[in-house]
């Protein structure tokens, strides 16, 4: 894995911190962002990795960020996490290329499995 980075975008500090800890404990390199906007400004999109994204956030939502990244040509694998899994939105996200969608609260193994799949996907040549 080594240089792959897991990006986390969530407005909830508790969620951000707990995800960072779990991913670090599993051996990943983690970077967290409060909002989609901060991610777009600060994240190094050239690095291999995946993005853990909250669907609903104040300001730009997760789906909007997905759209922006798609439009900019960044094909970073996306894992959506959501407080309430409503079916239409999940379909929309998956159709747009998301790797996985996790409903809160989610099990650590489910998350780590999804991250592993995403990182694997990111290693495949585009």
């Amino acid at each position, binding site marked *: 894995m080594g240089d792959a980075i897991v990006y986390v975008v969530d407005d909830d500090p*508790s*969620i951000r911190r*707990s995800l960072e800890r*779990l991913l670090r*404990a599993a051996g990943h390199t983690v970077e967290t962002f409060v909002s989609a906007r901060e991610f777009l400004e600060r994240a190094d999109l050239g690095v291999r990795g995946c993005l853990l994204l909250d669907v609903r956030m104040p300001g730009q939502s997760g789906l909007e960020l997905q759209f922006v990244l798609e439009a900019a040509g960044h094909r970073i694998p996306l894992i959506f996490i959501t*407080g309430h899994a409503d079916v239409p939105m999940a379909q929309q996200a998956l159709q747009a290329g998301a790797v996985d969608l996790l409903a*809160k609260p989610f*099990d650590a193994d489910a998350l780590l499995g999804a991250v592993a799949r995403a990182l694997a996907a990111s290693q495949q040549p585009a």
Partner: protein
Amino acid sequence: MTSAATLTRTSGIRVAVTALAVFLGYYAGANFGFFLRLPPSTPSVIWPPNAILTATLLLTAPRRWPLYLAAAFPAHLLAELGRDWSAPLVLAYFATNCSEALIAAVSIRWLGDVPGRFDTLRRVGVFIFGAVFLGPFLSSFLDAGVTALHGESYWTVWKYRFFSNMLTELTVVPAVVTGVAAGRQWLGRVPVRRRLEALGLAVVVVVLSVVAFGTSDYGAMPGGARTPLAFLLPFLLWAAVRFGPGGASLAMLTTTVVAISMVMHHYAEPTRDEIVSLQVFIGVIAAPLMCLAALIEERRRAQEALAESLRFEEMLSRLSAAFVHLQSHEMDAAFDSWLQRLGESLHLDHVILRRAGSPHQPAITHSWSAPGVRTVPPVCAANWPLTGDTEGRRLRRDQALLLLRSSRTPPMADGRLPGPLESNLTLPLVARGQILGHLVLDPITLPRSVKSISALRLLAGVFAGALARKEAEDALRTSEAMKSAILTSLSTGVAVLDREGHIVAVNESWSRFVRADSALWDRAIGIGSSYLDAWRTAARKGVPHASDALAGIESVLARSRRTFAFEYADGLSPADYWIALSVVPLDRPEGGAVVSHTEVTERKRAEMEAQRSRQELAHFTRVSTMGELTASLAHELSQPLSGILTNAQAAQRFLAGTAPDLAEVRAILSDIVDDDKRAGEVIQRLRDLLRKSDLSRVPLDLNTLISDVARLLSSDAVIRNVAFVLELNAKPATVSGDRVELQQVILNLLLNAMEAMAETNGADRTIVLRTGNTDVDAVHVAIEDAGPGLGPDAERYIFEPFYTTKPAGMGMGLSIARSIVLAHDGLIWATNNPAHGATFHLALPLCSVLVG
């Protein structure tokens, strides 16, 4: 037969009787004149016919004069034809006789004020000039001329006739006129003592005249020391002083007749010139005597008038004093007795007091009639006040009304003459600008003491004042009786307190509210006991709210507050027996208050029932609102739960390592605790909202409450892509209220705002929540959305139940919000924003206890 014919007949009879009297008087006078004649001189020594004609003309209207002169004509012919005169001479003498009477009557009418009266010096003077001097003086030229044709000396005849007729006019006319005027009175009302006095005086005058003129020759009489003549003078003066001009002239007539008879028939033949000197002598005594009598009469009348005027004024002052201290129930008797005194004092036939019952139907309430006088015909009472005609209009105005018996007055249906009340004086009784009735004085011939209508107006003023006071007192008594009846009929217990809070009066229902067996009162409290002490005792016993009630009642008694209203429960269970207490101050200088207790148990029960229904409905809608919020609540809960799970699993992984980072684990546990608390809070808020309210009012900060609700809805806002902006007042906005219910108001308003904005896709997606204090001790909350705003007229309907614009809405949210706000003594309303969207406002009274 019509009444007009009756009138004509009555007057015709009177004229005929007068004519007959003239005829008889003339005939008798002429014969008497012939009896006292000194032939060959033609003029008699006394010639009464001319004086009788003069008296007739003075007593009658000029239009009747030709008739009466014509009546005298046959008497003239009868007396003079057959004497030694030719017929033309007899006719000529009638003409001269008539001329004397006409000259006298015309000149007296022309110069004097009232012909035929001798009661003032002026009237006697005019009489002496006209009848005694001018008539004989001028007519004697004619008479002497006629007689001179007969062969006598012109100037001798003139002289003899002038003096004879002068004396006759002087003595006969006043005697006849007074006799006609006063004769009827002398037949009736004069007391026996006065009759005896007149008779005695007449006898003395006759005797003394006989003695004075019959006991010596008349030649030395005028200058001689004839003692009997000197004795006669005091009795002539007596007659003048005691019996007036009439008595004086009658006495002088007697003296003259006796003197001339005596001189002419019992003594040696007197010459005609001696007779003239006797005539002059008697005339000189008679004229001043007449004047003296007139003066004395004038003075007497003036004194009488003064005395009567004083009596009238005294009566007036007694009258006004009499009514001052009378109670209204004593006034009726007083009115009766004073009408009688008034009638007797003013010599009236009737005095009537009419009360203005209604403008068209006044009622005679008091009346008095002189003894022997017919009572007032009922027709007069019924027909008044002559509605529609001039008199009626004048009666309704503030004017005295004089009704004269006149030809205009129609006779009554049965042909009788109009009743006595047809000639009267009606005085309006005016008090405070209002006509209370009329005082009727009948007949209008009032004594001289009443100088003018204004004196009678004073009289009327006293009656009016008394009447006004009576009416006012009667009205007051009626009003008192009504109030007392109202108080008795009330089921409310009413008590009147003095300034110190002692009960001074209660109504019948009062005792039901202060039973000794109630929980509030130790013993029954009634008149005399202290109402305030009763409340103090209750407050000491710890009766709920007793001290509040006590403070309120005391503040009204101390005038520090206008009114006080309070509701309290009396009885073992608060819901058993509810009483509304109200205290209003008494508007009087000595202070005090009126306390009323009304049982309001039924109303209270209904109120509580309504409140319970409202709360249940509110709770039901809260529960259903929670259903709408499930998604948002799930998110709200899943956040901390997700954090906890992830943190816990991260910790497990850390601890599974060879050298676990304990600091990291500690931080994880701390986050877990925080997240758990967060989840707990969400659940607690949810539970709060789903709880049934317990009707409790507690002071709470509206700013905190609004923040809590906004936080509860924050996930929902995120889902709906709406942002809340809180612009809350820095100062706490403390109101007294039910927390759950007020939360529901804010919740409903926020949901409403968010739903409104779901329909729009504008760039502005914020809802502003604002609080601020108003200047009327209230907190103002504004919730400003950016939705489509309110439709026209929507402001009137949006708070009505089941009014909704949303397909799935029940239309209860705003209605419930309003009922809650109103139950908190607040207001709720909505306005459109200038740009877009609507603002919902609510105002709630600040809780003064904590703010102060």
